[in-house]
């Protein structure tokens, strides 16, 4: 054991004796690790954040509404009180919270004017369809009716009252730019579940769309009591279930009433009412994010592979230069294993040193990229350990061939050439 | 042809100053065949390097064909070596990854000759040492004697005025060594000034003038006695 330790120490001594070359090798590792830690942080950090956000959209909630099928000229599907009744009857034993939704598109003016917001008339049970909390105030009560009060999504509050904290928005009034008018007072502000709203809105093409996806994502609504909008028709019914078992049962019953539309079915035979479990979307989107994160791993793996190839080549060339030294060590009693350990220790020492250097480099890189690209590049310290492990693996792998070469050297052949 | 006047060469080895050459003064006429003998560490290689313009003396003057080469800069010295001085070393010092003919072409390349001309002259030089059929061989494919003859061809191809041979037979068997020495004899007969460095009296006997070097001091001696 002690001779192996000696071999390790010899490896470290060699690194110190060749400062320039060791430093150059360490720099190579540092660059590779800087890229690695950045990509991993972005990949998994971003993925984690987005999945955390969308998980709050209501994993135990089912939406029922008109199918988003464009069939101009076809009779408009009805969706109103009769359907709401059917839903309630079907789920009567499941402790479901059923929230009818009526919406209207409107402009609104607070301190600033917003061209278009969705006015959503819902019951006081609406918050139970989401895992999103109020950051200020309260939800409206069953006694509050009409357009007397409203609750704002946080991004709507920020658009209507720029620069005003949510707490300070409470009690303010906004003017609705609609034919029937309305000046509700703000009683509550709902948190914005989207951490990366700025990124989303930069690429959002469905911002004003009233598709299901648009509604789920936008969170730019003005919530008013149920009685504020009097249309007999409903936009949607939200059904929130208390647990997984009852969610599954409810889903089964609702899909039996209105079968899920398959893209392969011709539109004229598709159901005019859609049952949409939010988790399908959450899981599908989460799966897409995960796939993206996995693909993103290819980037750092490629960079590390390139570094590995180059450092292996470099180490092989170095070993060739040291044939004499290796031969002499063998003459003086070093075993093949000792030499292999020494060479590996050299590789590990430089690569781990490089890895440690790569961390501040990665931090600076993330900072610069975040400012230039305006995308949430980050350096997440949680992944620093993973990056160091990668650098150690890089050093170990790129030492395999050189260690084999050093260990396999025949000292007699090397020395006899010199002795001529 | 070659005149050294009070040439000294000193080196620093750590804290110690070593005087490898001490006020060496020698004169070599054109066409002479000089054998320089000395034990290991006597300074004979240093002397050869100074003679070959590979090294500058610390003090003293070196006149080559009447020109003081001690004052020349690096570029000028390179030109002198390229045009006037041929080298043959104990360990041949051929380019391992080049063919025999390309090894021989090397000085002509630095002389700026066109490719076809280089190839022609190199071919002739190789043929003159009996290796015309081995142009395309690499040093690894040649015997020791053949490699040394390639080195000789490389030295000859530029028609040097001065040929410096440092233990040319040191790595050869007696037959190969004898053939190399014969070539040197022929060259000298053709008018080339040859300075041969050796520790072997049998080899030294080929020279017609004999110098000895010991501890950096050169002195004129008689022909060596074989076996001593």
């Amino acid at each position, binding site marked *: 054991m002690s001779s192996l330790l000696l071999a390790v120490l010899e490896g470290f001594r060699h690194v110190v004796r060749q400062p*320039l070359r060791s430093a*150059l*090798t360490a720099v*190579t590792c540092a660059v590779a690790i800087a*890229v690695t830690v950045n990509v991993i942080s972005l990949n998994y950090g971003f993925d984690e954040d987005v999945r955390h956000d969308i998980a709050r959209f209501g994993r135990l909630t089912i939406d029922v509404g*008109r*199918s*988003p*099928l*464009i069939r*101009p*000229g076809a009779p408009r*599907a009805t969706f109103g009180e009769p359907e709401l009744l059917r839903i309630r009857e079907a789920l009567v034993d499941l402790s479901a919270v059923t929230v009818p939704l*009526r919406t209207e*598109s409107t402009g609104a003016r607070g301190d600033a004017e917003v*061209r278009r917001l969705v006015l959503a008339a819902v019951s006081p049970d609406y918050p139970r369809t989401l895992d999103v909390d109020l950051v200020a105030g309260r939800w409206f009560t069953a006694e509050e009716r009409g357009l007397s009060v409203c609750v704002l999504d946080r991004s709507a509050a920020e658009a209507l009252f720029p620069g005003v904290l949510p707490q300070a928005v409470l009690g303010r009034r906004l003017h609705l730019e609609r034919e029937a008018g309305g000046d509700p007072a703000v009683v509550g502000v709902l948190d914005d579940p989207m951490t990366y709203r700025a990124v989303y809105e930069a690429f959002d093409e469905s911002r*004003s*769309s*009233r*598709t*299901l996806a*648009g509604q789920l994502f936008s969170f730019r609504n003005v919530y008013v009591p149920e009685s504020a909008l009097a*249309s007999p*028709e409903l*936009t*949607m019914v939200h059904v929130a279930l208390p647990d997984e078992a009852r969610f599954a049962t409810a889903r089964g019953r609702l899909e039996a009433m209105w079968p899920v539309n398959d*893209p392969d079915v011709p539109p*004229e035979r598709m159901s005019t009412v859609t049952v949409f479990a939010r988790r*399908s979307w959450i899981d*599908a989107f989460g799966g*897409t994010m995960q796939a993206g994160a996995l693909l993103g791993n290819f980037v750092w793996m490629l*960079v590390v592979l*390139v*570094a590995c190839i*180059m*450092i292996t*080549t*470099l180490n092989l*060339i*170095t070993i060739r230069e040291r044939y004499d030294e290796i031969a002499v060590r063998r003459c003086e009693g070093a075993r093949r294993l000792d030499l292999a350990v020494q060479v590996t220790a050299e590789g590990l020492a430089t690569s781990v040193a490089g890895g440690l250097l790569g961390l501040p480099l990665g931090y600076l*890189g993330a900072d610069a990229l975040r400012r230039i690209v305006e995308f949430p590049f980050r350096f997440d310290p949680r992944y620093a350990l993973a990056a160091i492990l990668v650098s150690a693996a890089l050093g170990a792998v790129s030492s395999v061939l050189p260690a084999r070469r050093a260990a396999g050297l025949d000292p007699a052949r090397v020395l006899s050439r010199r002795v001529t | 042809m070659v005149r050294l006047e009070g040439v000294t060469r000193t080196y620093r080895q750590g804290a110690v100053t070593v005087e490898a050459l001490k006020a060496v003064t020698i004169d070599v006429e054109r066409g002479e065949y000089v054998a320089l003998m000395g034990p290991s*560490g006597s300074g004979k*290689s240093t002397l050869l*390097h100074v003679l*070959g313009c*590979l090294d500058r003396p610390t003090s003293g003057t070196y006149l080559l064909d009447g020109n003081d080469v001690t004052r020349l800069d690096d*570029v000028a010295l*390179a030109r002198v070596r390229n*045009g006037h001085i041929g080298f043959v*070393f104990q360990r041949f*010092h051929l*380019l*391992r*990854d080049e063919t025999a003919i390309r090894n021989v072409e*090397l000085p002509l*390349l*630095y002389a*700026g000759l*066109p490719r076809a001309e280089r190839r022609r002259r190199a071919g002739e030089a190789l043929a003159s040492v009996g290796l015309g059929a081995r142009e395309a061989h690499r040093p690894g494919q040649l015997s020791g004697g053949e490699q040394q003859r390639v080195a000789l061809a490389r030295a000859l191809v530029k028609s040097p005025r001065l040929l410096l041979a440092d*233990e040319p037979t040191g790595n050869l068997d007696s037959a190969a060594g004898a053939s190399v020495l014969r070539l040197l004899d022929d060259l000298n007969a053709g008018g080339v000034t040859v300075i041969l460095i050796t520790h072997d009296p049998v080899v030294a006997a080929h020279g017609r003038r004999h110098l000895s070097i010991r501890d950096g001091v050169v002195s004129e001696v008689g022909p060596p006695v074989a076996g001593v």
Partner: protein
Amino acid sequence: MRALDNVRLGLSRVRRRPVRSFLLLQGTIWGVAVAVFPAAVLQGTTEMVLAHGAEVGGDRVTIAADPTAVDAAPLETEDVDALRRALPDAGVAVVALAGLRVEKPAAPGPAVPDAFLHGPADAPAARGLVLAEGRLPVAPAAVPEVVVEGVLAGELARRSGGGALGADVPLPDGRAARVVGVLRERTPLARRTNDFGFDTEHPVFTGVTGRLLLHLGIPPGDDAWKRTDRCAYLVAEGTRVDWILLRVGPAQLRAAARAAERVLDGRGRAVVVFYPPVYPLLVGRELDRFRTVSLALFLSCLVMGAVVMANVGLLTALRRAGEVAVHRVEGATRRDVAVQWLVEGAAISTLGVVLGALLACALAALRVRLEPLAGMRWAFPWREAGIAGAVAVLAGVLAQALPASRAARMSPVDALVDE
């Protein structure tokens, strides 16, 4: 002559160690590939969309009434007129604009249109269709007039034994309409492309994207007729409009869509707007800032490569001391030695640049194949490749600077000492 020989000597050293040279230029290869590949896809797609926007849906906005809206009202010809008035004020240059009402035939069959499209006489232009023969229909006319699309015209021609012009087409109300014009048949790609710009027959679309769109509640249009080239156009009677088609320049696509939505929203219309969302991002160069990311990766690979080359150079300078000494002995100056080393660095890097560019092209071709967007193409980005290549070669030369200087400064005497 001497300079050229120095270059040849430098290159010959690269040739002598092909495997090592190839391994050493991995950094350059992948760095250049990372720099060139995204630029290739960006450039190719942008060129395609700008030159052939009509074929890949890069110039079209399609608008329909939102079927899920509670307060929805169907679209009308007045809405189209409102757009025609308001869009230029919003800075949108309208190429063509039409509202269409779709009427299905009583019974499908050969030489029977898949759909009758009622709209203004120049409605085909709004779909990017070009008149090949005849003229556009006029109304009112004694006999109803139609313009037919290319595939249908072919069927009518085969049935009549002559051309399609003058052929009769049965209308759903039992009357017969006369063909007065024939539209040029579109390319297969143009036919396959839907309102989002996707190639509907691409395996990735049919397997993944199409389902995802439905999942997201993005309505698939009832639009098989849009892709068959078997429709007939009549001058509209009545005010109902099922689809509004707007053609603009590809660079204005998003602005046009948003402006149209604003106008219609102001008129109390709840609409869904379709257009390929990716193309405006590319054409508008909004993704340019992400080039910084590929630049960062490029520089990372390049730095790694240059550093290792410098390291190897320093090592081999030592090992090749004997070889360098022989050159110096035979007349090479320090400058000759330095030039040979620098040329070696430039040669390796140039080779890496070429291989990296080839790799980038292969990656771009693969990426384009996997993409269901109809307009995705790749084109060799000479500018980016030139810049990346020049930087990579310079890095290779700089990497050899220290080794070259060391090799040049080595004393031949030290290498030749035999004692």
